[in-house]
């Protein structure tokens, strides 16, 4: 009984993870500027990683594979947001794209 419940929970988590990847992908295409696109793609970095790997861990039980999955998850959860930070920082510093809010602030200041 409990095994069936764990398996279904794992399945549900896998579906949630896959859905996050899909939503993130759609967001990257649909969002208007770089920063909101990165916000969408960060969903695949964090939410999808957590859900997919938790689901896989529930499926594999207490084995060596679970330890490996945990290590990979910790690695991805560390590096993903760091890469997102580095990308956002590089975009901001190089001035390729200003965040929307900063643009409107500038306009409000320059308007009067």
């Amino acid at each position, binding site marked *: 009984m409990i095994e069936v419940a764990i398996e279904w929970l794992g399945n549900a988590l896998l579906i949630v993870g896959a859905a996050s990847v899909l939503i993130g992908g759609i967001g990257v295409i649909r969002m208007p500027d770089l920063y909101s696109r990165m916000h969408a793609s960060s969903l695949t970095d964090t939410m999808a990683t957590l859900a997919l790997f938790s689901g896989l861990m529930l499926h594999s039980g207490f084995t060596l594979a679970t330890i490996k999955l945990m290590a990979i998850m910790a*690695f991805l959860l*560390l*590096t993903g947001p*760091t890469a997102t*930070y*580095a990308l956002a*920082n590089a975009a901001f510093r190089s001035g390729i794209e200003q965040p929307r809010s900063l643009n409107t602030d500038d306009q409000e200041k320059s308007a009067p």
Partner: protein
Amino acid sequence: MTIVFALFLLTLLVVTALAIVRTKNLFIATMLLSIFSLLMAVNFFILDAADVALTEAAVGAGVTTVIFLSALRLTSQYERGSLASSRWIAVIVVVTTTVLLISGTINTPNLGDPNAPVHQHVAPFYLENTEALMGFPNVVTAVLSSFRGYDTLGEVFVVFIAAVGVMFILDARQGTGPEYELRVEKGLKHHLIPRAVGGLLIPFMLLFGLYVQFHGEYGPGGGFQAGAIVATAFILHAILEGERTALKAFSRNAQMALIIGGSTLYGAVGVVCMLKGGTFLDYSVLMEDPVTARQVGIIIIELGVGMAVCGALLSIFHSFAARKPVAQAK
């Protein structure tokens, strides 16, 4: 299911390749090349070539991207347009090569066909005798370091020559001046998050490199992969802490010593085999028990390969990173 995934990946490979050709921005091309290598690594993995996949992921997606980026720092961001006349020559060459390649695939056996000539030549001998002759299961390591040890020795010398060549061309003018000093000094020191996370990762990368190096007989990996992974760790350190700190931790002389020492170690094992009465790189004469002797020989030459690859990649990276950009020099 695997075949669907493989087809999907191959389609993505073609799309990425077309995008690389189309883009004029070299930064975008570099990033796409990195993606191309990663897709290629996954493809190799699907084809059960874990050793090659590891190399492609570490060298192709990792080190090469950083080397390309540090090379781009020295040049312009945009591709210069080619002449219309030379474009026609390029088109003719590409079309001819494509036709030749496609015609070459027409009569080849199917993927994974056990009756294919390539699986009937020497491969059965390797598969049957690796366990008995070497005492470990990874056939790739056995082929690479013992059955075809001469080829690998040649590859190590190629790596050595490549590193020496890059140094000859690029080390002629090291950067100087206050602006350069500042950049060299700083690295990414003002970025707290990458520094903290990178510093956390470097020990694990080194540990994984050593694991791949000394576990190559039993799992995927070996000297080439380990050298690339260890080099990646040191390159990350150099990016985070700046050139000066990195060169203080791992000087140019130490890198040269790794390249020369690695190649020499490999060759010396062969010479010792000859002195002991065997043929060049015949490890079985090194000790009483031929199986143990082969294992010892393979561990030593894999160490030589790892040292040479690590030193070569690091010295190529530093040749680019320590050089002054041309625009700045003027």
